[in-house]
């Protein structure tokens, strides 16, 4: 029965490019990436810790377009995580410290510093930045969900299975596109157009329209 289900799911894969397939059953993008960028390595390293600790997360913003091939740099990879307790945050930082991550706003190995960051940054809705191996760009920008849209993307994240390398959970593309249009800078509109064109065959158009309506943006720059 399980094999039958898997077989059926595999048959349902939609080919997007010679590197990308999407399974609508499991909401998984299978990505055969021949080489990894520094941004990919950073994102995979960070997400592996979140996966290990069972922390719900989702990647949002510019890195999503870069991941799939948009030729621009990004300063950071934006992670939204579920609400964490102080203890869980300290546990997360302990693991991250072991993997050569450093906090930009404090000392990742000092509990007092971590408590300060937890209560004065994360709990207050500010973002925390972490760098890997002492290199400040690209870095991780981490925040706890505190908005309705953030809860929605966390709950509806799609899996990107980087074949043989690991998993990344990213924001639903429809919301990412609508949100980018809402932000409205040239760079954001370009990202939205890029994602829209690349994933046009798998986008849920009614969901996209719904989010464009909710965010008060029109779709003229997508077509």
């Amino acid at each position, binding site marked *: 029965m399980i094999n039958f289900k898997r077989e059926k799911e595999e048959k349902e894969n939609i080919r997007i490019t010679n590197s990308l397939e999407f399974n609508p059953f499991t909401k998984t993008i299978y990505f055969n990436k021949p*080489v990894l*960028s*520094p941004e990919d390595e950073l994102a995979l390293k960070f997400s592996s810790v979140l996966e290990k600790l069972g922390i719900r997360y989702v990647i949002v913003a510019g890195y999503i377009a870069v991941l799939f*091939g948009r030729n621009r*740099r990004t300063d950071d990879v934006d992670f939204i995580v579920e609400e964490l307790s102080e203890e869980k945050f300290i546990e997360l930082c302990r693991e991250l410290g072991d993997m050569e991550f450093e906090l*930009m706003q404090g000392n990742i190995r000092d509990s007092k510093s971590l408590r300060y960051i937890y209560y004065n940054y994360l709990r207050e809705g*500010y973002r925390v*930045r972490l760098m890997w191996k002492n290199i400040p760009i690209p870095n991780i920008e981490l925040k706890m969900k505190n908005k309705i849209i953030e809860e929605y993307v966390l709950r509806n994240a799609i899996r990107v299975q980087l074949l043989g390398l690991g998993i990344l959970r990213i924001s639903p593309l429809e919301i990412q596109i609508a949100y980018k249009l809402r932000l409205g800078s040239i760079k954001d509109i*370009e990202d939205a*157009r890029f994602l829209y064109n690349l994933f046009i065959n798998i986008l849920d158009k009614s969901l996209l329209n719904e989010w464009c309506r909710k965010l008060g943006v029109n779709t003229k720059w997508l077509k």
Partner: protein
Amino acid sequence: MAQVEIIKEIEEDKDRNLKERLKYIDWIVEQIRKDHKEWLRFQVKWLKESHRALIELLRKDPKIRQLIIKEQLTKSFNKR
């Protein structure tokens, strides 16, 4: 020239510029559709070179690291 006309001209120019840039984005997606793997090799090579250049810069002048961190933290603070 009335203020309204000046603003209209600027807006039209902005739209024209954006349309041109979006044509380029469409061209990129076209290349990706032809051969995504090859495009990724090219893109990642470029990103790696850019990363290597940054590391070299940090090695030559350690002060830059602090300046980047300061700039990144300001960005985060403004995003709240």
